[in-house]
């Protein structure tokens, strides 16, 4: 099946946070107790019970006093996902047929390596020490529905659909370069940015940490090539050179 995705258009977002509420409602997530920090952004960051949130940004503007940007933050559902790469437990993180990065809490072993492997600082851990993050409403999309957040978005700032189709529609709407089109093998969450990604609080070039890539490409193969190599070398040594026996001494003693 074609890869599905979400197109986020901050220019269309009115900051109503209905997406946050809809997500909590569908996924039956409790509210987080927070304090008034004097702004609309609340909670201040993703939590184990908050899979997506609106990031409020005030940036200088040419014509007005300031420009207000509302950026939906969530799991980006990378094609080449750092969390999946580093995870030591098979099946804890998996790809759904729609291309979402799903989670299976029963298989999560609570090591938290995915937190270090994620380029976007997304995975959180719940009170049972299990991974918690947006899974693109895998239960809804598998049944032909759209995720709760996009379903409820009143302005079209969040759109769910065929990933290629979303990219096409964003380009038609005048966004020459869609954020996430090619990064990390292509993100499942695409962003229609008018300005540089930095303005919206995003990395220009998100990437899996270099040490994780080195580990995956070099150390993992070395771990069995090295072991296999020395076992083979030992066998060859045993056959070609042979064990070091104490023949002379035994002969002397016996003789």
């Amino acid at each position, binding site marked *: 099946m074609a890869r599905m995705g979400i197109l986020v258009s901050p220019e269309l977002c009115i900051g109503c946070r209905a997406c946050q509420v809809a997500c909590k409602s569908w996924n039956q997530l409790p509210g987080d107790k927070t304090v008034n920090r004097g702004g609309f952004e609340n909670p201040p960051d993703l939590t184990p019970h908050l899979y997506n949130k609106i990031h409020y940004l005030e940036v200088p503007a040419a014509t007005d006093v300031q420009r207000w940007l509302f950026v939906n933050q969530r799991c980006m559902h990378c094609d080449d996902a750092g969390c999946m790469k580093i995870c030591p*437990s098979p099946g804890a993180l998996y790809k759904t047929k729609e291309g979402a990065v799903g989670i299976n809490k029963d298989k999560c072993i609570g*090591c938290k*390596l995915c937190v*270090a492997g994620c380029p976007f*600082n997304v995975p959180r851990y719940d009170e049972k020490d299990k991974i918690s993050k947006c899974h693109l409403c895998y239960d809804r999309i598998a049944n032909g529905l759209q995720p709760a957040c996009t379903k409820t978005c009143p302005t079209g700032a969040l759109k769910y659909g065929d990933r290629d189709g979303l990219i096409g529609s964003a380009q038609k709407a005048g966004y020459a370069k869609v954020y996430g089109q090619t990064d990390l093998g292509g993100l499942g969450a695409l962003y229609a940015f008018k300005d540089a990604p930095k303005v919206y609080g995003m990395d220009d070039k998100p990437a899996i940490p270099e040490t994780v890539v*080195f580990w995956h490409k070099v150390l993992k193969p070395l771990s069995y090539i090295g072991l296999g190599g020395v076992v083979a070398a*030992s066998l060859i*040594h045993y056959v070609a050179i*042979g064990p070091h026996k104490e023949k002379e001494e035994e002969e002397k003693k016996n003789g």
Partner: protein
Amino acid sequence: MIKKAGAFEIINHWVMAISCILLAVQGYGFLFHIEGIGSAFGGFNSMKTWHNYLGIAFSVSLFFSIFMYLKEALTFDSDDIGWITVLGGYLSHKVKVPPMGKINTGQKFFYLAVLIFGIGISASGYVIWLLPGNKQYILLSHIVHNISFVILMIAIPVHIYLGTIANPGTLRIMLSGTVPYQWAKKRHPKWVAEVERGHKA
């Protein structure tokens, strides 16, 4: 017969050997998502618990080993250079190997490698286990844990091979702790001389 290892040293070595082998098997299970290894330890969730606590056994036995081998392993003389030039006689039974102390040059290097990378793999393991909040610490520990793993997986099979079938009779050091006098005199003459001097004094 002559005593080469005491009871505590033998037990300590077995604790380290068994924990190390189990930890390594689990390591391959985690690295390559091998379901069979996970099942053998009751699933990946309980394998992680096993991995943590076997890690304690490994690091504690590594700590005690410092008092057993470090001083000897850091003592080098011209015989050690001679040992290196003939490659310890491992590649030919005809070469004459310089006289060795209680442990030979290869064993010294092996011990230092186990100590350095054993500390590396233990310390990084504790960081991943106990301090999972800091991304930079975890990434550093993850790479240290895996580099140490690769090196230990090369060094330890050689140690097992040389301590068992490559040198028949060596394994008894890990069982009874005693070795025949002639064997010791041939392989570790400087140590035997030392022991005899000690007896006389």
